[in-house]
């Protein structure tokens, strides 16, 4: 590795995961400029890549990066010849107290969660709040966010730009909200945590399918949120959903790193304690009689997690729950999942009917799971040539190597039997 030791790379990767959001948030507070904040944070990490191999890894990487980013901001503003008053203001703001310092009355006992609530300003559209938080605090790329929210990268890029423009021109402050204003921001924060968990659970790109740390961090934050908001059944529902998925983590891939489908997973290796905690949390949430999308999704996950074997799965119940989910949070992806469940409960022909209607609507064009689900239903109907075509299409669209290997295997099986 030319000049960059593995140690520095590891330290930088860790600093990125742990400090990126904090560095950007601090720079936003100092400059009031979201784009500048992000650019300076990027500059600071680039600078670290040059300096740390030579000078050693600093004792407090976060403080080092924040200071470097702050200096960059002053340099950039000086070059752009902003007014002297603004420059003095930015230069004078030494490290502001970390939000853990108790300078606010949000009552949120975690830095990262507090920054998420700060980012999710209700004057922005819900999806913009979510996208902006994932970009600014979690450091996800625009492409990753676009994929997670099922829109094109260009569309997502435009939405992020528009949101930042509104922040600037309507002067939306970056301020930790007081406790009584948390509820209106909670749905966005729940969505952020859910997408972070998913990103870690089935990474949207690259060879690293299990970016485990994103998921465990999302679970940690969901736990705090559920504790903070015991009267918000959706917060508890989200935690339950994550725990139920996470309980199956170890069996999702075999030793060769290939994807193992739900029906082929070794249920004896599922984490019984996680499933027990998840179902108990879900029962408690449902008793409040205010169902929401995360509680319903957790109920679906619980159906899978508590079935003794694949054949024992209550697909009729799952199909009904997806119907419920479709009315609470309508989306073509939910409809696709409903089709798969209906295909299991009432036979592949019934499932295919829904999938074909979805394909005709064009809502999921380019989504590899649409093609993969269609392929699976066609295969079960014995229409092998069409199934093979659909597997090929899915293969072309899939984002991770693991998924591609799984689809290749299925394609080979289908082709071999035809």
């Amino acid at each position, binding site marked *: 590795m030319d000049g960059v030791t593995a140690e520095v790379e590891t330290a930088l990767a860790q600093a990125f995961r742990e400090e990126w959001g904090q560095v950007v948030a601090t720079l936003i507070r100092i400059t009031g400029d979201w784009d500048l904040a992000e650019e300076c944070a990027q500059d600071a990490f680039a600078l670290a890549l040059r300096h740390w191999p030579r000078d050693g890894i600093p004792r407090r990487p976060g403080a080092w990066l924040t200071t470097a980013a702050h200096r960059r901001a002053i340099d950039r503003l000086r070059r752009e010849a902003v007014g002297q008053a603004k420059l003095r203001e930015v230069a004078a703001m030494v490290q502001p107290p970390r939000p853990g310092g108790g300078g606010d009355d949000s009552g949120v006992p975690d830095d990262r969660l507090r920054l998420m609530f700060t980012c999710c300003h209700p*004057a922005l559209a819900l999806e913009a709040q979510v996208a902006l938080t994932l970009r600014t605090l979690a450091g996800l790329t625009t492409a990753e966010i676009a994929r997670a929210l099922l829109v094109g990268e260009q569309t997502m890029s435009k939405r992020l730009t528009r949101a930042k423009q509104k922040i600037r*021109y*309507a*002067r*939306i*402050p970056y*301020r930790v909200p007081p406790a009584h204003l948390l509820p209106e921001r909670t749905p966005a924060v729940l969505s952020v945590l859910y997408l972070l968990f998913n990103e870690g659970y089935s990474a949207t790109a690259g060879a690293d399918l299990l970016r485990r740390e994103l998921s465990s961090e999302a679970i940690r934050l969901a736990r705090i949120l559920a504790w903070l908001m015991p009267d918000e059944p959706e917060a508890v529902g989200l935690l339950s959903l994550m725990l139920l998925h996470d309980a199956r983590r170890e069996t999702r891939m075999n030793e060769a790193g290939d994807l193992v489908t739900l029906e082929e997973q070794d249920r004896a290796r599922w984490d019984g304690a996680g499933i027990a905690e998840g179902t108990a949390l879900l029962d408690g949430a449902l008793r409040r009689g205010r169902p929401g999308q995360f509680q319903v999704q957790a109920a679906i996950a619980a159906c899978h997690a508590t079935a003794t074997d694949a054949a024992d799965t209550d697909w009729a119940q799952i199909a009904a729950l997806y119907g419920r989910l479709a009315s609470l949070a309508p989306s073509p992806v939910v409809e696709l999942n409903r089709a798969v469940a209906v295909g299991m409960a009432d036979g592949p022909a019934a499932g295919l009917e829904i999938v074909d209607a979805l394909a005709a609507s064009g809502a999921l064009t380019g989504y590899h799971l649409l093609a993969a689900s269609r392929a699976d239903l066609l295969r079960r109907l014995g229409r092998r040539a069409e199934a093979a075509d659909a597997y090929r299409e899915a293969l072309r669209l899939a984002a991770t190597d693991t998924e591609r290997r799984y689809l290749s295997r299925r394609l080979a099986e289908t082709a071999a039997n035809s």
Partner: protein
Amino acid sequence: MKYMLLICGDESAAAHADDGCGGWTEEMQERGILRGGAGLRPPTEATTVRVRGDQVLLSDGPFAETKEQVGGFCLIECADLDEAIEVTAKHPAAGYGTIEIRPLWTA
């Protein structure tokens, strides 16, 4: 930072035309926030003007026939949008109509 508050409502909002603002105006003047504003007579008394080429085109009524119409406006100056939202939420018209906060174009 200056914002325009566009106070909108449907026909039923007209019933509140003579209500006054229940101390809101005085409070915001005292806080140094209110810079101007007025209530508007109903859209049936509006005239819309467009100039196309060298022709002045007039029409009777508001520029868009929608259920909600602008019934008044205020110009305010606040530290940021959070303060503007707090000020707007206190306006009595927010209780029966809709208020749109629009930042002013600044140089």
